[in-house]
């Protein structure tokens, strides 16, 4: 039963990892930008959630209503103000600039919030659980987060393939010049893509902050999880990131079940294994 439990918890955790990954995958797909600051932006969103919950005395889930639009706005401004200027033939400038951004966010958060671990509380929800036959218990909160993650992925998939915004994303991704001839301002389209990416980061950050304790230094670790989920699932495949997240979450939990010290290692091994067997991930979409 412990094993089945570990796998179920791993699947639910995978939803969170998929949220880490989705925004990363989206902007890579649209503008071939690898955002090194992605993990730190997740942590920034967690701290933003913490500040709102304490200042307004509301549940973190209510704080989402503010965190998501604020993160989206940050994304748009960041893209238009800084990142667009770094995009071009050379892939190095955006890497360097987002790396710099990562350092700035970490130090900024450290300055404001100190290095102490923080956590957000979702109140009674945190202990609520559903009993399943065979001594299994599923926490309501992890289950809810998983459902939200699936819904977010489905929503992104819909936007990408069935909305005019998604059409613009795909057109700009295919051929930037020609997309401009259609009257699309690529700077604006990229801004919207980053806004959407950071809106998802907003959800991911608040969920992270409810699930575990966090401090300003944990961003790069979340970035790695996001990367691994993206690569396992296959570049450019939005549903793939969910599968990648789940594989990562399940491997980690199985590792932890064998030996508590093996949790992260097991995840990395699963990642390397997929990479060795299918270098382009399980369901690649981008060539």
């Amino acid at each position, binding site marked *: 039963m412990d094993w089945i439990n570990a796998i179920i918890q791993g699947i639910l955790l995978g939803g969170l990892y998929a949220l880490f990954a989705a925004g990363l995958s989206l902007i890579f797909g649209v503008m071939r930008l690898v955002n090194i600051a992605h993990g730190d932006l997740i942590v920034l969103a967690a701290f933003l959630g913490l500040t709102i919950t304490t200042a307004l005395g509301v549940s973190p889930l209510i704080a989402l209503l503010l965190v998501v639009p604020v993160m989206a706005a940050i994304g748009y401004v960041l893209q238009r103000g800084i990142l667009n200027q770094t995009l071009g033939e050379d892939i190095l400038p955006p890497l360097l600039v987002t790396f710099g951004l990562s350092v700035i966010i970490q130090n900024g958060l450290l300055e404001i919030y100190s290095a102490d671990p923080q956590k957000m509380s979702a109140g009674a929800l945190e202990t609520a659980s559903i009993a399943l036959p065979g001594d299994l218990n599923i926490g309501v909160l992890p289950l809810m987060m998983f459902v939200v993650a699936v819904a977010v992925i489905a929503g992104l998939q819909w936007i990408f393939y069935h909305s005019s915004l998604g059409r613009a994303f795909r057109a700009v991704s295919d051929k930037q010049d020609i997309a*401009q001839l*259609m009257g699309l301002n690529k700077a604006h389209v990229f801004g919207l893509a980053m806004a959407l990416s950071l809106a998802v980061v907003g959800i991911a950050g608040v969920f992270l902050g409810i699930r575990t304790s966090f401090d300003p230094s944990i961003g790069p670790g979340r970035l790695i999880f996001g990367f691994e989920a993206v690569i396992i699932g296959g570049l450019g495949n939005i549903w793939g990131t969910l599968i990648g997240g789940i594989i990562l979450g399940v491997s980690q939990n199985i590792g932890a079940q064998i030996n508590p010290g093996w949790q992260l290692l097991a995840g990395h091994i699963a990642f390397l294994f997929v990479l060795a067997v299918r270098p382009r991930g399980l369901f690649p979409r981008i060539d």
Partner: protein
Amino acid sequence: MPDALLSTRELEAHYGDFQALFGISIDVFPEEVIAIIGANGAGKTTLMRSITGLLRNEPEMVVWKGQSVGGFRADQVAHLGIAMVPEGRQLFQSLSVKENLIIGGQMGRKGPWSLEKVYELFPILKERRNVPATALSGGQQQMVAIGRALMSNPDILLFDEISLGLAPIIIKSIYEALPKIIGQGMSAIIVEQDIAKAVSVSSRVYCLQEGRISLKGRSDELTREAISAAYFGV
């Protein structure tokens, strides 16, 4: 003479240190079709890229309805009502045929063209509307590229070598459709290497040679000899 719809004024274009265009001045009048001919590498595509804003210019180098627009970005130029069927078709490979057409119309400019009208012009596109655009044959892809440009209901349409790489029979049918396409009060610039084709569809011709205009005149007045001389520089 009415005022020109679109003009270039002493337009120059550079790729790094390499100068591709030297002082190009052309005019297109309302509802006029002009042709631009020239050998490989003469600068025809570069001129189209300059007009559409894909290459940036000095503001006064491109004039649209009396306004200097040379400094506009390509998407701003598109909003003015200038559309292009680019060389090599350049369809969006992630978009279906229908999506390629819809994105051409996403600015919402009013006019005679709509998805239905494009399907009427090229019925095969309606049949194949849900197929990825790049899965079509070359001729059908060219129809998508033309339809995509029409969807923006432009005031002027730039065609950059629409016959390139197509079978003669396809070229013939596309040129036969041309009057229906530009017969709707539109102006057009037709870039073409086939001199006979260019002369037959246009009222005036400019010949480019190594980045300069080597000849210009009325299509019905230019002799074959004069054009050949300007074309090959002999």
